[in-house]
């Protein structure tokens, strides 16, 4: 039974696209058949983060409008054969997506893949509501920062009212993915703690992704961080989050940078 997952946040720049790519790759690395779908029509970026920007021919809008077949638009990942990308259109706008068209594409994808990860655009407009529309599961990407938490709260409200599942009276399962987390700052009281965010938003925790230079490095080279540097702390955190998404029970911890305690003590030397 295929799972449709929306990766959403309300606020922009919190790490939706990074998380979609990393979770998608992690699931595929675990043997699942995965497609990541970019819903950010007009401002596509998932292709770039996945390193497939030069291979885009057709896109989601072409398929929704019937100008191209689904298999023509899907781009197979060169590193992971079980990972595919359905890019968004760069030249159209969000109104090019119709509700019926998206429903048809999602149901076609359900037949081909185990996991369909929908990368939502920021905001609460049409693009975002269409991305969440058919989801079974939502990953709410949040930073430990007031505006991000407020926007996530708003998105959770929409997930509980505007999705197909909600309209049928069912509950969509929602998970919090705390990204760009800085344990040291949270410990010093400079940043909201995980418990604070969890208490305010009241949804279960899928994972904590530490702030890391590896994320930018991965997007620079066009690879999900779980592929670009699999042993890095964000990659390990994403890999564990992907396993939790599959239903595994793993205790949530904040993976430390590889240097660890002694590395921090002798930080300079460790780097040199």
């Amino acid at each position, binding site marked *: 039974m295929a799972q449709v997952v929306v990766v959403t946040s309300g606020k922009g720049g919190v790490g939706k696209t990074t998380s979609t790519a990393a979770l998608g790759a992690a699931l595929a690395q675990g043997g699942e058949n995965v497609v990541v779908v970019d819903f950010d029509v007009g401002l596509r970026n998932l292709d770039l983060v996945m390193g497939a920007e030069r291979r885009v021919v057709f896109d989601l809008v072409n398929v929704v409008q019937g100008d191209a077949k689904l298999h023509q638009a899907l781009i197979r990942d060169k590193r992971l054969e079980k990972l595919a990308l359905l890019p968004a259109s760069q030249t159209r706008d969000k109104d090019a997506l119709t509700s019926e068209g998206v429903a048809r594409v999602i149901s076609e994808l359900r037949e081909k893949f185990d996991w369909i990860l929908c990368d939502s655009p920021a905001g609460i407009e049409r693009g975002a509501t269409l991305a969440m529309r058919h989801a079974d599961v939502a990953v709410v990407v949040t930073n430990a920062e*007031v505006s991000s938490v*407020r926007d996530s*709260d708003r998105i959770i*409200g929409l997930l509980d009212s505007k999705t197909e599942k909600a309209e049928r009276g069912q509950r969509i399962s929602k998970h919090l993915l705390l990204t760009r987390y800085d344990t040291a700052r949270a410990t*010093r*009281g400079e*940043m*909201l703690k995980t418990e*604070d965010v969890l208490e305010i938003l009241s949804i279960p925790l899928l994972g904590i992704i530490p702030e890391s230079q590896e994320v930018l490095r991965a997007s620079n080279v066009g690879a999900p961080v779980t592929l670009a540097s699999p042993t890095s702390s964000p990659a390990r955190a994403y890999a564990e989050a992907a396993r939790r998404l599959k239903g595994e029970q793993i205790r949530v911890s904040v993976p430390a940078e590889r240097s660890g305690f002694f590395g921090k003590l002798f930080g300079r030397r460790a780097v040199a």
Partner: protein
Amino acid sequence: MNLFALFRRRESAPVARERLQVLLAHERAVVGGSDLVAVLQEEILTAIAKHVAVDRDKVQVKLDRGDPISTLEIDIEVPTLMRAAVAGHG
């Protein structure tokens, strides 16, 4: 002034937490964007306008979202000898 004060000054996270809790308690109550303040203002003005002439430009509405109570303050200038201030709590 002392080290302790310096240390405390950095602890902004508890402030963030409290601000969010108060704000979201209010935002969750207002479901689907129905604007309670606008509705209240309109109904209160209509009630008063039945009895005295009210200049709509001379109405001041203030809202302070707090915990555990919020205050809604509506100041209406009434162009006669009497001046009225309507204040509601809740």
